[in-house]
């Protein structure tokens, strides 16, 4: 019985949405995307543009909030394990070695939601209090 309870606690700990634990963001995708859950590792690859295709074949199109947004700091810390400044340094390395450029940015939760709604392969994150319109679906984040 003790083993069962410990296992249950461990399981809950593993699959609990990171948003709940970080208290700052939720991850959203276009409603046409069948993905329902992503690990933080997968999210990190997506936002570092190391994952390029969804299982349905669509291009992965990540969208960021501005660097000044507190939600972005929470997302960056929880998903990448890096500060926003460290992520910026990563992109500087990519840009100035001629490799890649960072994801597009939208200035607010509303505009991230609108972008994801109108872009089939888009994925973004917004604050937990953001209003999700039809056409956008929340994705569970698994540790």
């Amino acid at each position: 019985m003790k083993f069962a309870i410990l296992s249950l606690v461990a399981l809950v700990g593993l699959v609990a949405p990171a948003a709940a634990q970080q208290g700052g963001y939720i991850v959203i995708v276009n409603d046409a995307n069948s993905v329902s859950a992503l690990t933080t590792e997968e999210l990190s690859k997506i936002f570092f543009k190391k994952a390029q295709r969804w299982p349905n074949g669509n291009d992965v199109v990540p969208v960021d909030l501005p660097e000044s947004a507190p939600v972005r700091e929470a997302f960056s810390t929880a998903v990448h394990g890096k500060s926003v400044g460290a992520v910026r340094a990563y992109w500087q390395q990519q840009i100035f070695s001629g490799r890649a450029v960072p994801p597009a940015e939208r200035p607010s939760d509303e505009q991230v939601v609108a972008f994801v709604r109108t872009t089939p392969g888009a994925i973004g994150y917004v604050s937990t209090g953001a209003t999700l319109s039809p056409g956008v679906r929340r994705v569970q984040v698994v540790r």
Partner: protein
Amino acid sequence: MRNVLSTGLVVVTLALATPAAAQETKLQVHGYLTQAYGAAHGGSFLGIPEAGTADYRTAALQLRYVMTANDQFVWQFSHRRLGQSPITVGEPELKVDWLFYSRQMGNLDLRVGRLPIPAGIYNEVRDVGVLLPLYRAPFDFYLEGAFTSETVDGVSAGYHLFADSPWNVELAVYGGRYDMTNSNIEYDSTGTPSAKVPEVVNVDNALGTQIWLNTPVEGVRAGVGASRLDVQSGNFEGKWTERHASLDARTRWATVQAEYRRFALPGIGYTAGYVYAGVPVAPKVKLHGQVEFSNLVLTTAPGAPRFDYDRTKTFGASYTFRADLVVKGEYHFTNGYWADAPVTDIGFAPAKVSYFLVSFSTSF
């Protein structure tokens, strides 16, 4: 005219150098600038005179046309001033640094055109001040302005092996041609070294590779590389080969980097390396220390004599306002044969020249 162009590029760069939001238009613009003031003691080194100079900077504007998620054109033109260095005499104020087409196919990246050479930790970003711990990449290893090129006119292919594994490998190969500026030493009638004279030579049949092993420890990787090239004219005409090894460890507590390389060219062997350590002492403040060396062997001379070509110690500090705005101060103690003045050569006494640089770097 030179000042007008320089000032224009600096102004444009600064005007654009805001912490801009990532762009998503098909045409994207990025750039960087590092402006420095330096002064030397005991001679001059890399264009830094005893009287001091602020004519010391690197800058570039990068235009990137993103056709699709996997296809892009990259055009970067750059500007460099090295004070009074003879190496940059005649160098254009603006030059096409890169102009290449890149196609991404899964883990394969193909490039065609004038493209940065993947070599060591810093070759591709050797002028990007916000990415360098000191003003320039370690000189003995990377050199500057002479005996080196950061770009090649040709093709390159990069492949990421075992990309999903904690241990993964990044492999790059390239081939093509480029121009290299050599630095020749002239002697006066008494047989004493009297001047350094630059000479642009054509390099053909350049082939090279760079392999990085990324480890499960984030920020820690090890690399090896090699290249061969045919220098078509000048005092160093002939086939050159080069090998190098790198260790790059960047953690939140410290950065430690070490690289070693060996050149073999007709009649000469050149080995060089460095160890760098950087330690953050406050949230935005980092202290830097670096030891560099290079040796030269006259491989076809009787007894193959070996010379300590350079020994340099460097100390510095940097303050990072933001990832795209950094101020640095550094002091270098050199002892060898790289100094612009006094002009010297192996067989003569080495020059002991020290110099400092204060610089700020920005990018967008």
